[in-house]
């Protein structure tokens, strides 16, 4: 077995989780439920209508952060990539964010009055961050992803209408490319406020839980932005170029 990347189409799906439990949420994002018995990765993927090679590249890159097959990933159709990114968005907005909110709320309720103002400050800081994050995700869902799907559809049908060409010339993807950096910086600030600057007397158990969740969210977001910035954006540029060329513009 390759210890660095121990997953193949024949690996048992149950073993995937045994090897790396951090992949649990990834399986969820692909819509895979438990109870897969002794079925292999390829069998489970086929049942769930999932592109097994895409699935493998994604779990490998999550398992070993040093593995990032940018070019291989770019070869998958945009709709496959977007479906995955979209369900990741859903995971953030419907699961992660409410979980973290809940911890901060509990912290706010259980802290003694003398420290209440500090936790409320953190809570507001996090809420602001969330507003920004959700706005960012929504923009991708409503504008960026549909645009990309339109590009791909137009290529497969070989129909290039004027409005699409006009859209491409408006350079939407270049505008979108402005990085995810600001989001990451805010999250890092929040972590440091807790780690370095919160008085040690404040509910240690909850602070630990909160920090762990923040680190997880941060890592997940990093992986997510990596796919958007290094796979999706270059792929879109290539589609745009192809359309402009084939339509003779």
């Amino acid at each position, binding site marked *: 077995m390759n*210890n*660095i990347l121990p997953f193949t189409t024949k690996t048992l799906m149950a073993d995937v989780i045994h090897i790396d439990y951090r992949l649990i949420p990834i399986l969820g994002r692909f819509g895979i439920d438990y109870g897969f018995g002794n079925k292999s990765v390829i069998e489970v993927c086929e049942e769930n209508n999932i592109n097994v090679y895409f699935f493998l590249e994604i779990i490998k890159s999550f*398992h*070993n*952060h*040093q*593995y*990032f*097959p*940018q070019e291989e990933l770019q070869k998958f159709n945009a709709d496959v990539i977007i479906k995955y990114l979209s369900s990741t968005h859903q995971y953030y907005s419907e699961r992660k964010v409410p979980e973290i909110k809940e911890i901060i709320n509990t912290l706010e309720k259980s802290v003694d009055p003398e420290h209440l*103002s*500090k936790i409320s*400050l*953190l809570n507001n*800081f996090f809420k*602001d961050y969330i507003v920004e994050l959700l706005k960012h995700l929504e923009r991708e869902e409503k504008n960026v992803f549909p645009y990309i799907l339109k590009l791909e559809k137009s290529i497969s049908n070989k129909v290039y209408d004027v409005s699409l060409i006009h859209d491409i010339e408006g350079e939407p993807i270049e505008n979108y490319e402005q990085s995810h950096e*600001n989001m990451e*910086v*805010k999250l*890092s*600030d*929040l972590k*440091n*406020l807790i*780690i*370095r*600057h*919160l008085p040690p007397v404040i509910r240690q158990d909850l602070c630990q839980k909160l920090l762990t969740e923040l680190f997880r969210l941060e*890592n997940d977001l990093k992986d997510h932005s990596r796919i958007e910035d290094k796979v999706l954006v270059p792929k879109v540029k290539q589609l745009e170029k192809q359309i402009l060329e084939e339509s003779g513009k």
Partner: protein
Amino acid sequence: MENKTSKIQVIIAAKHFLYRLGLKTIISVIGIDPEITEIGSLSDLKSFLNKGYKPDFIIMNNDISDESILDQITAIEFPCRTMLIGDKGQELVKGRFEAICLENQKEIVEKFQEFFFEPESKQEPSTDKSLLSEREIDVLKTVALGLSNKEIADKLCISAHTVITHRKNITEKLGIKTIAGLTVYAIMNGIINPEEVNQ
């Protein structure tokens, strides 16, 4: 921050199997239990690195390329600490690699220990991480209130350049980069009043 799996990743690149075996033995002798990837040719090594792998260490023997190894590897970007084992005369590349030629076992073991355990020479200068100076607190106060660099400079009668330096130091000491984060810190520590912020 990298999310590393527990073991360190080492690439051993040498043409001959026996050579690679020998290198693995030395590594285990000095008490390291890494994940080892064996590579038998320079082109494989290149494509491996191109795929985005970032090992922690690379140990490379000069038999990996039939042509002159130095010509071949100077164009490659090595992402980590890299050791080149070969003949004398390869001191040329010392700036980029730990180039060694092997004489006896003691030397080899020492060299390997040094390679794996000694920190690389370029260490970050240690900065004073203690609390903020009075001047920095003055600057932080104005930053948290949302003033621009120019406004801060005018208010504190210092140059904009000095303001930037102070801000850089504050961020380094506190680990907080955004204005919103600095404002939270300032309120938490009583440097400004919450009421002041919205004015």
